[in-house]
């Protein structure tokens, strides 16, 4: 197999004195959609934050396209090609929808144009002058995703994009993710909503207590259902 786009080895992370990740290994190949499963508190968000560098107290190896991200200051990590959608979405209330959308600097060529984005998210176009946090939860999630599509990032870190959203909106987000996959985007997705995740993922990782305990492809999913039911409490 070719060199993975994102290579994580032996990742450990801490919140203050509290040791949360205990040596996480993970690979994402170009064009893949990989989903990180695990119960609440397993360490999924912490894994994304450590890769993004938002959580600074971390150890191990993180390479994107062969480039070591570990020693970089936070504002340089995005330029390696990472786009981050945090669990809490991070829409700025002091900025309009349009300003929120335009905020992240372009990190590489080949991002979506503004027209493409407003075509993919017509609601955002309609409400472009509203205050960012006046949007509904679903629209805020769309905005959080739309915002990093402009930047040319080639791997998206999405943390529970469907959390707390109505089924129709979840479906819309599913459509968006499939559209991104069709464009060849690489996605690392954290999901608790297993029914949603199984529809979009090519490969799965399962986390528990800060350890990676299993990995399998979408084809192998059927054979894992019993053990998954147990670890995830589906």
């Amino acid at each position, binding site marked *: 197999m070719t060199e993975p786009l994102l290579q994580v080895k032996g990742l450990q992370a801490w919140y203050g004195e509290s040791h949360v990740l205990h040596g996480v290994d993970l690979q994402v190949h170009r064009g893949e959609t990989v989903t990180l499963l695990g119960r609440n508190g397993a360490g999924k968000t912490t894994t994304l934050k450590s890769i*993004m*560098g*938002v959580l600074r107290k971390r150890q191990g190896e993180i390479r994107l396209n062969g480039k070591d991200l570990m020693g970089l200051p*936070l*504002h*340089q*990590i*995005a*330029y390696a090609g990472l786009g*981050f959608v*945090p669990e809490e979405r*991070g829409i*700025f*209330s*002091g*900025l309009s929808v349009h*300003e929120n959308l*335009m*905020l*992240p*600097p372009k*990190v590489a060529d080949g991002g979506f144009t503004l027209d493409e984005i407003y075509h993919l998210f017509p609601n955002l176009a309609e409400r472009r002058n509203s205050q960012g946090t006046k949007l509904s939860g679903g629209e805020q999630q769309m905005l959080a995703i739309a915002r*990093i599509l402009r*930047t040319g990032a080639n791997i998206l870190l999405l943390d529970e994009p469907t959390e707390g959203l109505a089924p129709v909106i979840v479906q819309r987000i599913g459509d968006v993710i499939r559209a991104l996959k069709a464009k060849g985007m690489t996605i690392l997705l954290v999901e608790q909503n297993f029914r949603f995740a199984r529809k979009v993922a090519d490969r799965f990782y399962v986390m528990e207590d800060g350890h990676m305990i299993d990995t399998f492809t979408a084809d192998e999913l059927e054979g894992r259902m019993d053990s998954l039911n147990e670890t995830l409490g589906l």
Partner: protein
Amino acid sequence: MVTVFGISLPALMGQLLIGLINGSFYAMLSLGLAVIFGMLRVINFAHGAQYMLGAFFAWFLLRYAGIGFWPALVLAPLGVALVGVVIEKVLLSRIYNLDHLYGLLLTFGLALVIEGLFRHWYGTSGQPYSIPSTFQGAFNLGFMILPKYRAFVIVASVIVCLTTWLLIEKTKFGAYLRAATENPTLVQAFGVNVPRLLTLTYAIGAGLAGLAGVLAAPVYQVSPLMGQNIVIIVFAVVVIGGMGSIMGAVVTGYVLGLVEGLTKVFYPEASSTVIFVIMVLVLLVRPAGLFGKE
């Protein structure tokens, strides 16, 4: 002779003009304080010292290099901004994860050191700085005499405040600032060099104080104590307007200058305390300030 409530019109207008001039300085200074506080969460007690530095830099330029008011209006604030860069990089950037109190203490100490040094070198009596020749003389408006330079100060301060407001509300740089005020980590994760943004913001705030200082030099003289006298009032203005509210700082600055002027006409005994009385009332009724978010 025309009178208003028993006060002659020219006397009333004269006091209102003084109030408006003072208000112009309050507005420019509290604007810089609000910009710095909004982004860095530092209560910049060195603001008065930076205002004084602006005036002194203009005076140095004239005295030692023969450089006049107009170039000084650009160079002196740049000099103060540069001092701001050094202060932020060497000192403030080390204490961002500590309580706000440390920023206040640090800048307070800094103000004492800077003002102490200037007092040591130049004494407490002011150095005169003459009005630029373009603005010597006065307009006769019929009901009052309006010195040209004072009119210029009012217009200049409105332009400065408006430009700063536009910079923050309408530009990309301003969007970075507003976003970083809410969530600096996420803004930095998007690839924005937030540490540099902090340095720049402090430099802009200090530069604004320096600019006010240059404008003040021909009005109030250049003295090591000029910042101390005004900074306390400016803090009251910021508290009344609401910490971190740009608009609040500016509007409150002008209004309180006028209120002070009016008080001088109708009840002179209270003119030096009226702002603090208002501050107490506002704190009792609306602790977040008139324009602050509750």
